[in-house]
């Protein structure tokens, strides 16, 4: 009996039935809903939001456009990350569109340095928005990791980076409404922490992958 035959025999003996994971998109939407609800709730709990923000959403089309582009980018990134954690599902188009839209969203703030969507104002200023943005992303990241472990993520670093980018940008997006609107401030104190969450998530996933590979190679 070859070692391959041995392996097949050991894998197929005492085989436990497994429940197929079902539609991964539903998990992605569930995660998005739970995370968005949590982010909105915690931001409202921790401080007042900019009073005129809702009125600006209905009266300033470019501001509304920015919000919609940011939200769509986050949905696509999350969907791409969840789909890529199941072997064989296509995700490049969705993730690519998410990254492209995210770049456009960030690009709009760069354009806004010269031509802002709203009249820059200190109204709604939150003193610790940079820390808030970073910290509020942590529970969605943990929840995403917890859910994604149910599947079989092949490229853990890329998936972690993508889902952490989505999680990091959720509070950054809502800070558009909750905090003051000055593009330079948004870039520095809302967008950068969101990107940092993505980098941190990718770094942690890389470390975890290396550790598990080392322990597999040196049992």
């Amino acid at each position, binding site marked *: 009996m070859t070692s*391959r035959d041995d392996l*097949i025999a050991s*894998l*197929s*003996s005492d*085989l436990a039935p497994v429940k197929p*994971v079902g539609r991964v998109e539903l998990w992605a939407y569930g995660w998005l809903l739970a995370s968005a609800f949590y982010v909105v709730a915690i931001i409202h709990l921790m401080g007042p939001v900019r009073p005129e923000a809702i009125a600006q959403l209905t009266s300033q089309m470019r501001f509304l456009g920015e919000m919609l582009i940011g939200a769509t980018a986050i949905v696509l990134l999350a969907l791409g990350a969840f789909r890529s954690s199941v*072997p*064989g599902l296509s995700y490049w188009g969705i993730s690519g569109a998410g990254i492209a839209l995210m770049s456009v969203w960030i690009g709009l703030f760069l354009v806004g340095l010269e031509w802002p969507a709203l009249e820059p104002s200190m109204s709604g200023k939150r003193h610790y928005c940079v820390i808030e943005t970073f910290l509020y992303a942590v529970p969605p990241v943990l929840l995403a990791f917890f859910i994604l472990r149910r599947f079989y993520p*092949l490229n853990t670093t890329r998936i972690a980076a993508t889902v952490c980018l989505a999680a990091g940008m959720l509070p950054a997006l809502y800070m558009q409404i909750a905090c003051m609107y000055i593009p330079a401030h948004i870039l520095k104190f809302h967008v950068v922490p969101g990107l940092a969450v993505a980098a941190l998530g990718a770094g942690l996933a890389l470390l975890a992958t290396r550790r598990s590979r080392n322990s597999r190679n040196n049992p």
Partner: protein
Amino acid sequence: MLMVSAQAGDEADYRLLLSELAPAVAAYLRSRFGHHDFVEDCVQEVLMAVHEARHTYQPRRLFRPWLFSIVRHKAIDALRQQRRRQTLLEREWREQVVTASFPGTTNHENTLSSGRMIASLDAPYRDAITLTKIVGLSSAEAAAELHISEGALKVRVHRGIGRLKKLLEADRL
């Protein structure tokens, strides 16, 4: 569908599925990478991955894309490991003091500082000597690693040692 009944816990179907998959995966890998010895390791990695990921197969989707995304991933992993091993070997050529014993040489001669002399050999001789005398592979294993016959490997080792002797003599003069 064998995978569906495997998900339900049918051992016989699962054994049949894995037995049918293994040669197909091996043939696919050989068609891509040739007759490397890592192909068999990779096939076994794929079988284990199929086992761990079997709950992610969705019966309403095709089986092939699911399987081959795992195969591709495992193949890339194996190639990376090969590259890492190669880098390690090259580092050994530069850093490790050669302790291999060659017939007819003294201890002093056996100690070739930093593998400088081995590193100066032509690649075929250097590879053959490193794999057999430093890494410790058998002739058959080293021949498989270099994709040559065992006879050719022995010739390379013999000639490589001859060249090393000449280098040592030149060094002593």
